[in-house]
């Protein structure tokens, strides 16, 4: 569905900033999140986790635990049948270790009991006989031929020989003559970079409440980015028909990609099945860090050539990503996005995906892109420094634009990179003076965006109000933007629309809330559903007027005769038609089901000033500005919120966040004390500048905005710190000990 020809239409509701419809629930404490639900007779579920990074499980003896007063069920991997599909099997093996514990925190068994105390006591009484195996947690170590093997037989056929079996995937993208390109350069810089694994860091731990009866029907309440994904996955793992499992998504306390898979949900269902009682499992924060998806950690080599006047002649990126104890496809996104911001004659990217004894990688906001683009943008900045060139001018000179053959293959359509670069250049921030020990950095960012399977149902009520039913959890204001698009299309006030996020039995399949897809794809389906309802309302008006339905048009929220020839009738508003719906054929509704394409890629540019304390190695972020092509911003406040929130996650990644493993392979910082997400006092205001270049693939020009903002901060901060400290930093996070060490090394 493409951009309306009337794309220059004047919007009445889209583009305004109304109060979100779920807002009052969320400021009064009334909104119900994953852990807030209870059921009569509910049991408490807890999970026993491996203390070892890698160990064969010789046996699990649950007899003593089962004998604890109040214990009603215990589940291990033995309770689940093998899955047909390898991806499903990996998800299952991650939920409950089968044969081997693959990382510190890997689930071994689960208990359901009448009290928290009984469940905890039972966990202590489960006797697991482990044969501890050598482990590996570092990506480069895990690639060595003699590395401990996490899983055998998982490598794809095209993986080059000579590497450990831990290397499961090899990808390559690019075009042009690299050698000739580097030969044309006046300077070639080659650098190695490393980035730590980071966690999505949502404030709400995973939680669910499962109820399964002896008739095999089940209900599941959980915090997830996709109730349909949970339904399909859990039904398959429990051998159920998907119609018999109804999943309701609670309000969700953050996800950022980390809630696009299951961890505790199949376990709670199995505990409920075995006990015949509702079972609630709520993860502790430590479990969240140890056992749910961090992003990948990476090691990469980047080589870029540039002419003295700033034209990039060739670029090469070799990316090595570890995604935990299972095969992981994220490196492909990194390899595709590394040079996406550039219009290049010669470019090549290669990626290797590696298994380690770490938790299974889960998606995290633009998965795979931030670390690849960080490395590329760092080298581009160093080349700018080498030639004394303005880094924005160099980006403008080389920027991808409409017609550019992208580094990953497709040719770009309408994209906003040039516009964002120009906006950054014109902004007062770019020319503001800097003080001592201060530096300014910038970086481009890119994300693909996604559409996907989407269903929306829209009911016209007899009193002239409208109910919109959609199937994607509202993770940051999407009820507002969906309701706004429905009201806009129908031509009625926003307060006449109520948007509901429904359970899995009330709509067809919806892909998870990911890929920056909801405002784009659900919005598109909502507009289409509204148009279907409008067609029906026009038909009803024609019936009432006794004219041909082709002679009725919909304008400003009312059916009108299409012209003088159609007849002279007063307009019939939505409310008028709704009131007479019963006598004209019954209730009126519109619905739309689609696999939405045309999401349209997204670019952004971030600009940051930092100050480095040369005696302490600490970094203070002084000023931060974001320039992003958002397509049409439906609710600009929430678009800004995505930009600000993504940027701050990126700031955390750049400066302090990291998974720290000890020599024993155990995670050393599974809590918010030492996994250091940014706090309010770490930050300045984050200035968002929205550029609205309409997406040709959406009737209102909407483009996904959620993921791109986490991409540029890594390099923007690294470039700013490197300029402020006078030394190039090539490893994230740029924690104070690392920065101080680099400074001392240059001054020594």
């Amino acid at each position, binding site marked *: 569905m493409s951009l309306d020809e009337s794309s220059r239409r004047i919007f009445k509701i889209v583009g305004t900033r109304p109060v979100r419809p*779920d807002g009052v629930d969320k400021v009064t404490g009334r909104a119900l999140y994953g852990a807030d639900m209870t059921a009569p007779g509910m049991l408490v579920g807890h999970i026993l986790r491996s203390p070892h990074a890698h160990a064969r499980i010789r046996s699990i003896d649950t007899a003593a635990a089962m004998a604890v007063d109040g214990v009603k069920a215990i589940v291990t991997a033995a309770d689940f049948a093998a899955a047909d599909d390898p991806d499903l099997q990996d998800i299952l093996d991650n939920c409950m270790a089968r044969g081997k514990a693959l990382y510190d925190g890997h689930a071994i068994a689960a208990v359901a009991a009448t009290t928290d105390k009984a469940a905890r006591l039972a966990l202590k009484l489960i006797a697991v006989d482990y044969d501890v195996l050598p482990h590996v947690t570092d990506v480069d170590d895990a690639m060595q031929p003699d590395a401990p093997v996490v899983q055998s037989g998982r490598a794809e056929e095209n993986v080059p020989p000579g590497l450990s079996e831990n290397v499961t995937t090899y990808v390559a993208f690019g075009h042009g003559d690299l050698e000739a390109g580097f030969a044309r350069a006046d300077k070639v810089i080659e650098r190695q970079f490393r980035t730590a694994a980071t966690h999505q860091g949502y404030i*709400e731990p995973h939680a669910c409440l499962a109820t399964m009866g002896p008739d095999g029907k089940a209900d599941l309440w959980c915090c997830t980015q996709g109730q349909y994904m949970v339904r399909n996955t859990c039904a398959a793992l429990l051998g159920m028909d998907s119609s018999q499992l109804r999943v309701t998504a609670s309000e969700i306390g953050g996800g950022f990609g980390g809630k696009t898979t299951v961890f505790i949900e199949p376990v709670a269902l199995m505990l409920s099945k075995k006990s015949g009682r509702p079972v609630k499992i709520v993860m502790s924060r430590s479990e969240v860090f140890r056992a749910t998806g961090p992003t990948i950690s990476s090691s990469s080599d980047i080589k870029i050539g540039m002419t003295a006047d700033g034209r990039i002649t060739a670029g090469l990126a070799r990316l090595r990503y570890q995604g935990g104890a299972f095969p992981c496809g994220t490196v492909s996104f990194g390899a595709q996005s590394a040079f996406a911001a550039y219009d290049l004659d010669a470019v090549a990217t290669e990626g290797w995906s590696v298994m380690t004894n770490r938790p299974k990688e889960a998606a995290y906001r633009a998965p795979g892109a931030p670390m690849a683009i960080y490395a590329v943008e760092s080298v581009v900045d160093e080349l700018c420094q080498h030639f004394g060139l303005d880094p924005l001018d160099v980006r403008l000179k080389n920027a991808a634009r409409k017609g550019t053959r992208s580094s990953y293959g497709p040719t770009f359509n309408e994209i906003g990179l040039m516009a964002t670069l120009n906006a950054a250049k014109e902004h007062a921030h770019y020319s503001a003076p800097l003080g001592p020990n201060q530096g300014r950095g910038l970086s481009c960012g890119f994300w693909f965006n996604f559409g996907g399977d989407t269903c929306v149902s829209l009911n016209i009520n007899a009193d002239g109000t409208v109910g919109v039913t959609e199937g994607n959890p509202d993770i940051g204001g999407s009820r507002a933007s969906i309701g706004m698009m429905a009201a806009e299309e129908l031509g009625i006030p926003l307060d006449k629309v109520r948007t509901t996020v429904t359970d899995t039995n009330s709509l067809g399949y919806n892909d998870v809330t990911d890929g920056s897809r909801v405002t784009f794809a659900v919005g598109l389906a909502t507009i289409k559903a509204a148009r279907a309802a409008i067609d029906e309302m026009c038909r009803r008006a024609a019936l009432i007027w006794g004219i041909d339905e082709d002679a009725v048009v919909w304008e400003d929220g009312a059916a009108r005769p299409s012209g003088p020839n159609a007849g002279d009738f007063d307009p019939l508003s939505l409310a008028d038609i709704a009131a007479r719906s019963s006598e004209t054929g019954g209730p009126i509704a519109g619905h739309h089901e689609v696999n939405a394409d045309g999401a349209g890629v997204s670019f952004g540019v971030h600009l940051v000033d930092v100050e480095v304390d040369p005696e302490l190695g600490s970094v203070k972020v002084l000023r931060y500005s974001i320039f992003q092509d958002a397509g049409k911003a439906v609710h600009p406040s929430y678009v800004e*919120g995505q930009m600000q929130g993504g940027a701050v996650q990126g700031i955390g990644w750049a400066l302090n966040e990291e998974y720290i493993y000890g020599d024993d392979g155990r995670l050393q910082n599974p809590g918010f004390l030492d996994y250091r997400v940014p706090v309010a006092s770490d930050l300045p205001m984050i200035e968002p500048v929205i550029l609205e270049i309409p997406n040709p693939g959406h009737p209102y020009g909407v483009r996904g905005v959620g993921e791109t903002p986490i991409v540029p901060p890594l390099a923007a901060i690294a470039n700013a710190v490197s300029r402020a400290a006078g030394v190039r930093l090539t490893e994230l996070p740029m924690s104070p000990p690392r920065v101080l060490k680099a400074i001392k090394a240059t001054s020594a």
Partner: protein
Amino acid sequence: MSRIHVNTSVNGDALDFLCEPNETLLDALRNRLGLTGAKEGCGTGDCGACSVTLDGSLVCACLVLAAETEGREVGTVEGLADGDHLHPLQEKFLEHAALQCGVCTPGILVAAKALLDRNPDPDETEVRYWLAGNLCRCTGYDKIIRAVLDTAADLREA
């Protein structure tokens, strides 16, 4: 281990409940009193999602034993609004879009109210440091800080 009978006041209502000796105030509020506005984000006092007031002092409910609240006054997010009139902070958070997922919001509102009760004219830095114990992973804090400053300005004029 016998349960303890606790008489306390929550949002001005006299209440009593039985709790385990090692039960936190957070668990008592959520599981015994049905007040699920305070959230558990960490259980170690590092995220502030369970912020409540105890005799007017801002605390993490996960770091208070329920039994300690005998004879004391507890304030939670459920007590911020006056009937169907939202507290000005609640209004401003909605107006400024100062929440995305909303799970940190109850704690931040309780903490922000404690600040404004004590300092009607905080500057940006004071707000940022006061709220440093309330993690928000969605917003980058910008709109939260603006909402608090804007509320303070309005309350000063009122």
